[in-house]
């Protein structure tokens, strides 16, 4: 009965590890929320930031963060999806594929400031996009692609080979098998990958400092014409995001309430990611049901 005892000890240890991890994570979240929540108010969430006086808010930054996230995801998700499909479903298992995979993994280890500087020299200066949401979205795409491709490929891997064989046996072409059978089945897992990378994009600062910029001109929220410079939708305006704002006030902020704004912004960021997760999960569940008609 030694192996049974061993089993008990091992399972107990695993419980302990999982509990400890939850504890660490909850302590972190608790710390951020406890120091940040008292700062939150409607005014804080909607008012524009102030350069050096107290009482500034993060309204513009919050909007920028979401807008930039959506743009970056809209650009990077289709590319990552296509690439992952090709890598896993079509590409032969030879040295070229291995090299490409390795290169993608290496790219993901580059510090984001390097991606940011590359984006600065290429998009902002060379392509004359200036400090703009568009430059920022491209830089984030660069930063996001390796991670997203990798995680979508892993999602495809979790689908049993039988599903593919079944699709092919029914006379579907490979592409039809992928779009009608494999992808719907992989939706929940792909979604997890998207949420994870969206979280990273949302909290990214270093890649944006040199591309989307670190100033947030006031926006006119009544003007939704994307060609106007003060319109929230204009993709050519400079846009400081929440994460960049936190970085900026911590490094050079001289407003008297810098610390409060910083912890408030962190809490807002966490809550925004939380809401984003819930929404994505809900949408994903419905999508899964519709696509697989389960």
């Amino acid at each position, binding site marked *: 009965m030694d192996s049974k005892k061993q089993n008990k000890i091992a399972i107990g240890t695993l419980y302990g590890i999982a509990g400890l991890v939850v504890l660490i994570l909850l302590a972190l979240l608790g710390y951020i929320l406890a120091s940040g929540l008292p700062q939150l108010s409607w005014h804080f969430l909607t008012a524009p930031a102030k350069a050096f006086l107290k009482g500034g808010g993060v309204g513009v930054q919050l909007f920028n963060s979401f807008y930039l996230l959506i743009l970056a995801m809209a650009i990077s998700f289709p590319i990552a999806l296509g690439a992952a499909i090709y890598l896993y479903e079509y590409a032969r298992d030879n040295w070229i594929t291995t090299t490409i995979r390795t*290169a993608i993994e*290496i790219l993901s280890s580059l510090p984001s400031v390097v991606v940011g500087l*590359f984006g600065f020299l290429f998009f902002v200066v060379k392509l004359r996009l200036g400090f703009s949401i568009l430059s920022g979205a491209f830089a984030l795409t660069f930063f996001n692609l390796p991670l997203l491709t990798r995680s979508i490929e892993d999602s495809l891997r979790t689908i049993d080979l039988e599903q593919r064989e079944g699709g092919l046996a029914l006379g579907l072409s490979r*592409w*039809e098998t992928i779009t009608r059978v494999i992808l719907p089945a992989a939706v929940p897992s792909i979604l*997890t990958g998207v949420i994870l990378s969206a979280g990273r994009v949302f909290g990214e600062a270093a890649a944006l400092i040199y591309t989307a910029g670190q100033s947030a001109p006031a926006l006119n929220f009544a003007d939704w014409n994307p060609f106007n410079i003060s319109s929230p939708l204009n993709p050519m305006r400079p846009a400081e995001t929440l994460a960049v704002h936190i970085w900026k006030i911590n490094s050079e902020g001289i407003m008297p309430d810098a610390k409060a704004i910083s912890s408030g912004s*962190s809490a807002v960021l966490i809550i925004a990611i939380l809401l984003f997760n819930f929404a994505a999960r809900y949408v994903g569940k419905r999508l899964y049901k519709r696509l697989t008609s389960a």
Partner: protein
Amino acid sequence: MKTKTTQQLEQQLKRHSKAAKLEIWGRTISLTALLLIVAVVVAIIGFVASKGIATFTSNHVNLGDFLTGKSWNPNITDANGKPEVGALPMIVGSFLITILSAIVATPFAIGTAVFMNEISPNKGAKILQPVTELLVGIPSVVYGFIGLSVVVPTTRAIFGGSGFGILSGTCVLFVMILPTVTSMSADALKSVPRYYREASLALGATQWQTIYKVVLRAATPGLMTAVVFGMARAFGEALAVQMVIGNAALMPNSLVSPSSTLTSVLTTGIGNTVMGSLQNNALWSLALVLLLMSLVFNLIIRLIGRKGRLQ
């Protein structure tokens, strides 16, 4: 007459069906996407390489001096009129902190992933998964600040010194890479076919034996990838580490003495240097070293993964 119908028939047969057209179309699109990514990767790697090599080609720094030198003061030239660009302290710092945090994080991450997947999938999906996903989104600045206000004073109280150093950096990185490694490990475990477990349990193995001897073995390559990704993140992380490691370009003589990593020196310095100058190129050389080091890591892990695969 007869020949015409055969021709028609032949044409009809040779014409691509709708599904076949779709197939070609889909294949082309996905290949284009992959080529786009390859172009991006090549562009960035080429960019970093061309800038990083300039230190050795146009500024004539000796590669050996760069890799083994111990003092980093690109602004100053030494007695021989050569700039002081010894990157060894940063290389050692990066290696130490990455390996240490991976060593600490791996058992926790895999343990949690096993718990989520094998022992209590219900609790895992309800509590652990959302929480880990949430943590990935915390910006590194915030991690850095928590490190500065909690980890550094604790380290100082226990081990003395200023509290800044590799140990504090490891603590912060451990928490930072934990969610990434955990969720990727969970995915790897999920991809192990169900009948592996059933077969093992049917043979009379306990749950732990099944996990240890079958599931973990089968998932080894996936778990390795998860760890590499965690290390990659630890490697490339700059803002948070920079705040707690002390950021002094000195050889780390203990885990609690201020030291530095490639990224922390890179991010602190890059805005203060002028493009094309030696100071700037030297920083790009650090980025190049970073690339090469992660290449080496990748290759090593790939080798291990190949060996550990279930026969």
